[in-house]
């Protein structure tokens, strides 16, 4: 293990596996999630949703509902008045605010079955449900379109009269469901393809899948009598919720305080708002707190899944296996509003490889489905399914080992990715090497079994973060950070501060603050918290150490550069002073007399995030009678830079792999001819359970620590979901002897492929 960014010093806390500081509350039921709050006078909010996939909202009659005793507030789209075209940058990319607002509450049209058209707040859940039933909505049903290529057809029903495809010249004069066409690339693809010794082609399809967080969206909104308000919610970013909610309701940001509850999973799906503006609008109307919690049915109907897609790929290579050209077209579903992750997918799709001639075409296509939301490495797993399946086919055609062909073409330091980065301090080749040397790779396989490998890439980001470190009078420390903890990041924050301060981990507690108690931060997502917020926390801890040394120098009356800080103690290096070392407790106990409280807060915009490269091996066994595929063994390797808390880094790899396996084998949105989702429940939207999976072995590669992070950390959360779709598909390919080009590889589909021979 390289010391890299740790500067050669021995680490005492970072790299260990302490119990997380927030753990006891989570295993005893004390931790408070969004739906766990009770406030005096609290009302229940409920939403009325469109049963139609596409319809004009002609009239909404709320009189009967308003007359029901116990109903205290009702809102519809008419209550949300927002100017056109306002874009906001909320730290995770620009979003059309108007789209978010209309997604929260429909205006002239219902754009998908499940689209919110009205909301009520009442004194009990039963009364709220009854009030929703009493709201009469008159619809004019319109033709709908669901699938991406159908939505792209020239005669498709149009969702937005003012949507003209961006990125096309000359500018189109007819509206379309294609929100944007993206074209990027380099070199001479047609020439290189013509000169290639071997060309692999394929058309791949994936279905929409949901992030599948077990906790439905939940919030409590409480409006005060002077226009100020408080919202408690489960989200991936309290500042993001504040920005979106306040702007949708036309409030100054400082009038809205957002308190992050514990969050029961997000995976990107909670980096937006659905309920908060509605709950706050209801609360403002009646002056009482309003709790809103989605049912699981609502989560499926009305919160963003990720895109389904149609992809076409062509790979050209030499007979030695060197990939010289790639032509990739990605058509991604955006749901009812523009904004699929097709752009990021184009940029990430080929980043694992050093390919000279690349042509990427992406289409962002709307249709009558819920607006897609981010899902862990948004866009990348889908594209990787096509790319990694094609690379697998290429290896097979050339009779090359699938890891060897990836190593031959693999990204390494100095390689220029098509999206603009030149890789530095990446350990993709080392990761491939580690996988090749792992016993899993050469373990024998039995009948009906197959093995697949695949790799994946994700950018990881830095961004705005704030961290604060306070020293208590008894010499302990509290770390306050700005980011909701979805995977154990509080532990990592505490560990990095403890390491810097020289304190044992038990003396450093970590907390996540609300929007009034800490400086601004971007959301928890983008694999950025350990990197960017960790950087802020570490810098704050370093400032505190500098302050502690200054006070020791003051107390000893010596120069500050003669003070050494080690193991939470100040040592005097001035030989002329006959003084004893001062512990942090001794210095902190006298803080008032030496300048005041010992505390520091650092806000920054972290640059230099290290990308994530992942390589997975998957073994499957396919039952030839039922088409059922069982994953019998799985190994996930990743370039992690440095694992601050290895258990939680392993957890990210295992969790991402499990989601990818579900995506590959069983999960999909099934629509009926009426454009209504047919499987909005966990019974029929089949996610992996414990009996579906084996142990998931992990390999953490720390060969190239990130020199931009104080401890060498790279983001790890998203890359693990990128390889599994193709890893599973490549394993099934080997097990049954033919390739299936569509996901999920559910039993009927696999059986059909087997029976076709």
């Amino acid at each position, binding site marked *: 293990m390289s010391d890299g960014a740790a500067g050669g010093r021995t680490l005492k806390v970072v790299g260990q596996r302490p119990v997380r500081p927030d753990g*006891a509350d989570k295993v005893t039921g004390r*931790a408070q999630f969004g739906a766990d709050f009770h406030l005096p006078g609290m009302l229940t909010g409920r939403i009325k949703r469109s049963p139609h996939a596409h319809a004009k909202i002609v009239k909404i009659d709320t009189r009967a509902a308003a007359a029901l005793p116990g109903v205290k507030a009702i809102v519809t789209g008419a209550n949300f008045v927002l100017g056109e075209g306002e874009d906001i940058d909320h730290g995770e990319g620009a979003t059309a605010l108007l789209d978010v607002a209309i997604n929260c509450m429909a205006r002239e049209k219902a754009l998908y079955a499940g689209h919110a058209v009205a909301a009520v707040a009442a004194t009990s859940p039963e009364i709220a449900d009854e009030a929703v039933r009493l709201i009469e909505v008159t619809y004019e049903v319109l033709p709908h379109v669901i699938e991406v290529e159908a939505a792209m057809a020239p005669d498709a029903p149009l969702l937005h009269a003012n949507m003209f495809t961006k990125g096309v010249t000359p500018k189109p004069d007819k509206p379309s469901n294609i929100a944007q066409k993206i074209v990027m690339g380099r070199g001479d693809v047609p020439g290189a393809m013509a000169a290639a010794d071997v060309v692999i082609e394929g058309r791949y399809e994936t279905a929409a899948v949901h992030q599948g967080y077990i906790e439905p969206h939940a919030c409590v909104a409480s409006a005060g009598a002077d226009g100020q308000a408080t919202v408690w919610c489960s989200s991936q970013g309290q500042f993001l919720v504040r920005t979106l909610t306040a702007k949708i309701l036309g409030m100054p940001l400082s009038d809205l305080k957002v308190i992050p509850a514990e969050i*029961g999973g997000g995976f990107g799906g909670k980096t937006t708002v659905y309920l908060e503006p509605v709950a706050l609008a209801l609360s403002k109307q009646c002056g009482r707190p309003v709790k809103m919690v989605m049912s699981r049915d609502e989560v499926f109907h009305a919160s963003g899944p990720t895109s389904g897609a149609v992809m076409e790929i062509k790979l050209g290579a030499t007979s030695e296996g060197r990939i010289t050209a790639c032509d990739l077209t990605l058509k991604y579903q955006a749901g009812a509003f523009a904004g699929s992750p097709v752009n990021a997918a184009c940029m990430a799709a080929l980043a694992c490889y050093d390919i000279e001639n690349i042509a990427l075409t992406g289409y962002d296509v709307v249709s009558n489905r819920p607006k897609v939301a981010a899902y862990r490495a948004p866009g990348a797993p889908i594209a990787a399914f096509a790319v990694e399946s094609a690379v697998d086919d290429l290896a097979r055609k050339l009779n090359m080992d699938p890891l060897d062909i990836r190593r031959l073409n693999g990204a390494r330091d100095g390689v220029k990715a098509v999206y603009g980065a030149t890789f530095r301090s990446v350990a993709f080749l080392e990761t491939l090497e580690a996988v090749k040397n792992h016993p899993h790779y050469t373990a024998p396989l039995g009948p009906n079994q197959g093995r697949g490998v695949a790799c994946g890439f994700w950018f990881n980001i830095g961004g705005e973060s704030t961290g604060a470190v306070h020293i208590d009078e008894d010499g302990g420390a509290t770390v306050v950070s700005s980011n909701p903890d979805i995977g154990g990041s509080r532990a990592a924050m505490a560990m990095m501060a403890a390491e810097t301060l020289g304190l044992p981990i038990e003396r450093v507690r970590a907390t996540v603050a609300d929007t009034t108690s800490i400086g601004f931060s971007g959301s928890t997502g983008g694999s950025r918290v350990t990197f960017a917020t960790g950087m802020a926390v570490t810098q704050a801890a370093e400032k505190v150490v500098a302050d502690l040394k200054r006070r020791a120098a003051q107390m000893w009356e010596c120069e500050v550069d003669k003070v050494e800080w080690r193991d939470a103690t100040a040592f005097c290096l001035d030989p002329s002073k006959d003084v004893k070392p001062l512990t942090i407790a001794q210095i902190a106990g006298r803080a008032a007399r030496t300048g005041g409280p010992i505390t520091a807060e650092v806000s920054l915009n972290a640059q230099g995030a290290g990308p994530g490269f992942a390589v997975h091996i998957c073994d499957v066994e396919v039952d030839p009678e039922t088409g059922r595929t069982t994953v019998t063994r799985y190994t996930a390797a990743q370039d992690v830079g440095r694992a601050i808390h290895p258990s939680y880094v392993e957890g990210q790899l295992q969790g991402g792999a499990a989601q990818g396996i579900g995506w590959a084998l069983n999960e999909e949105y099934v629509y009926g001819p009426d454009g209504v989702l047919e499987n909005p429940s966990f019974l029929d939207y089949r*996610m992996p359970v414990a009996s579906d*999976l084996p142990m998931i072995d992990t390999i953490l590669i720390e060969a190239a620590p990130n020199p931009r992070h104080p401890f060498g950390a790279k983001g790890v959360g998203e890359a693990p979901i990128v390889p599994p779709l193709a890893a599973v598909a490549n394993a099934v390919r080997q097990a049954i002897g033919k390739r299936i080009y569509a996901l999920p590889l559910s039993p009927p589909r696999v059986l059909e492929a087997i029976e076709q021979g």
Partner: protein
Amino acid sequence: MSRVLVTTTVNGESVEFLGGTRQSLLDALRDELRLTGSKEGCGTGDCGACSVIVDGRLVCSCLMLAPEAEGKRIETIEGMAVDGHMHPLQRQFLEHAALQCGFCTPGLLMAAKALLDKNPNPTETEIRYGLAGNLCRCTGYDKVIRAVIDAAAELRQAPDTKKAGAAR
């Protein structure tokens, strides 16, 4: 919705509450007794986040009506630690980092406890099937299984800990 007086035992204590005739036991635990450790993930018995133990049997509290709790002995996550001392399962979950967001954790712990109460020496496969009614989206189950294996071993060696963890 009409309400009836329900008298029942929760985590060893006798309690009374007004339960709605159409209210689930889960909602009654959360809203009447303010025991919010049991969670609603789906409301249809598919995710196990609401798991409690009723008369020694693992139950999805979202599938049980509040008045059905009358006279029963109910164990929830809040009763798993006794006098502030965590049950070996809780400790092993923390040691193994068997939770990330923690939302499914109370349900998983209840299911694991119900399993070990009946089968103190389960194989890995038996644990996986014993927990198959509990969805977790964060962990991929690996560390959860390892935590249960170690907790089972710990309980087999020191039966007194098991008694301390059981409802009184």
